[in-house]
């Protein structure tokens, strides 16, 4: 890929972030703010000495332990962000190839020397690779504020700061796990990504209704004609277990990606994404 092609792709990604800054930045920032406000409110309801005692206990707990071993403790804190990213991804994917057709700006985007494949790929990379970076940065900022507060609390209550430092390192290490979890989950859910994009490119109105309606219809027809529920079971098997969405240790990444279920999903997703690229040709 030449330098211009890279700059071009960067330009496409920048466009996505600018257009969807509420989903990429606004939504996680609000979640972070709510968590911080809630934490501070809770802290004000607790007696100072009890709070210091709790901090001392946590400081001792983390002191000297590997940040990556302790990182999973912070994964729970990431769950609200994870759910937010999930909801924002659905909103983004179902609208991204529909909204510009609705407001006719598609004629401007299509009047530029950018192929439909580049456009669709930029949208996938934006939500799968770029959006989680913003989420992680916002979680980092939230941890930073929390750590400053805990450090001040620690100093004023004579708590060992080294333990708090270890806790902060574990929090940072969890960010890496959160980001990898988001990437691996995207691969796992690639069929959903492709399905939403396909109907975003296809529907003239209410793309979410189309995406949901056609899925239900296909499942119903399978049941009605063949008496089977393979589609429904397949989707349920890929969405029902929360453990499918979080990675607690690096060692598991390889097996989570390179297994039959994930790779089959990637193939199905790629076919649906190719369908979205094809549908993008038609703006009318």
């Amino acid at each position, binding site marked *: 890929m030449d330098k211009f092609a890279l700059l071009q792709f960067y330009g496409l990604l920048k466009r996505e972030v600018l257009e969807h800054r509420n989903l990429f930045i606004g939504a996680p920032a609000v979640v972070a703010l709510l968590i911080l406000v809630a934490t501070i409110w809770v802290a004000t309801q607790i007696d100072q000495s009890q709070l210091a005692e709790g901090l001392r206990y946590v400081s001792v707990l983390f002191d000297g332990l590997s940040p990556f071993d302790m990182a999973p403790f912070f994964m729970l804190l990431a769950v609200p962000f994870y759910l937010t990213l999930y909801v924002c991804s659905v909103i983004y994917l179902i609208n991204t190839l529909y909204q510009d057709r609705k*407001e006719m*700006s598609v004629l401007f985007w299509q009047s530029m*020397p950018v192929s439909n494949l580049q456009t669709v790929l930029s949208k996938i990379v934006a939500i799968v690779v770029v959006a989680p970076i913003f989420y992680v940065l916002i979680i980092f900022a939230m941890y930073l504020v929390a750590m400053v507060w805990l450090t001040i609390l620690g100093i004023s209550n004579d708590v060992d700061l080294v333990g708090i430092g270890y806790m902060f390192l574990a929090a940072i290490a969890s960010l890496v796990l959160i980001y990898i979890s988001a990437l691996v989950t995207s691969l796992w859910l690639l069929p959903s990504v492709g399905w939403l994009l396909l109907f975003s490119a296809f529907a003239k109105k209410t793309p979410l209704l189309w995406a949901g309606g056609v899925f239900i219809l296909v499942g119903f027809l399978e049941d009605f004609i063949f008496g089977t529920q393979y589609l429904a079971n397949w989707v349920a098997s890929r969405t029902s277990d929360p453990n499918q969405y979080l990675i607690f240790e690096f060692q598991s990444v390889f097996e989570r990606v390179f297994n039959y279920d994930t790779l089959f999903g990637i193939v199905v997703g790629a076919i649906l994404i190719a369908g979205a690229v094809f549908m993008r040709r038609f703006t*009318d």
Partner: protein
Amino acid sequence: MSNIVEAKSLTKNYGSFTALDGVDLTIPRGSISGLIGPNGAGKTTTLKALIGLCDVDGDLSVAGRDPRIARHKLMEDVCFIADVGILPKWLKVSHVIDYVEAVHPRFDRKKAEKSLSTTDIPANKRIKDLSKGMVTQLHLALVMAIEVQLLVLDEPTLGLDIIYRKEFYDRLLNDFYDGNRTIIISTHQVEEIETLLSHLVFINKGKIVLDSLMSDLPDIYTEVLVDTDKVAQADALQPIYVRELLGKKSYTFESVSREQLKILGELHTPSVADLFVAKLKEEKHG
């Protein structure tokens, strides 16, 4: 003069509605071509087909490429402005410039900024906060900063007041057109662009009803204000259109020699607007 657009038997159906019905079209390179037609005639569909935004049947070549196969490659050589609504409303002016600079290999940012500096458009404003005229000025400034062979304009001044419309076409002629580049303008506001055109195409109900160089029009079409005592003679020469004018009758003839017509009355070359009405009425009445 070679042709930058060559289209043969272009056909497009939307359900039972035929938008293009076997359109044959050639646009000479270096021309300013007007695609004139009433609303719903097939102008926008034709232009969208030329830049690969609409799937059509038939043979089509634009700047040596088939738009249906390589739209993104074609758009390195072709720019497109539709009516004022198409710039994304949520973008800031500076963001639009950033975007075009990032994705278009032939965009000259300095040229665009210089062009914009002569307008009242602030770089930090969003498109939605600009007036219609400003949006068109912005789009034109972007397009003029791109080194392309062909500029396609679909009703570019729709909804603009007379000052913006005049300024738009002045800039187009002075800052973009250099005799080598080609411009295709679609509109139903014929009078506005009549003096700019070197090539004229009328389209109606998805069919081309006239395709001619402007310089050939006087040889083909003649309007005669017929003296009242010569009406029968005029009728015998099979005019394509007759209308009442100042108590007399004005006849429009196609491919009848001026030698034959000069005995009927005062001769003129019909204006594009009059010719447009004449050709459409001819279509209607067969």
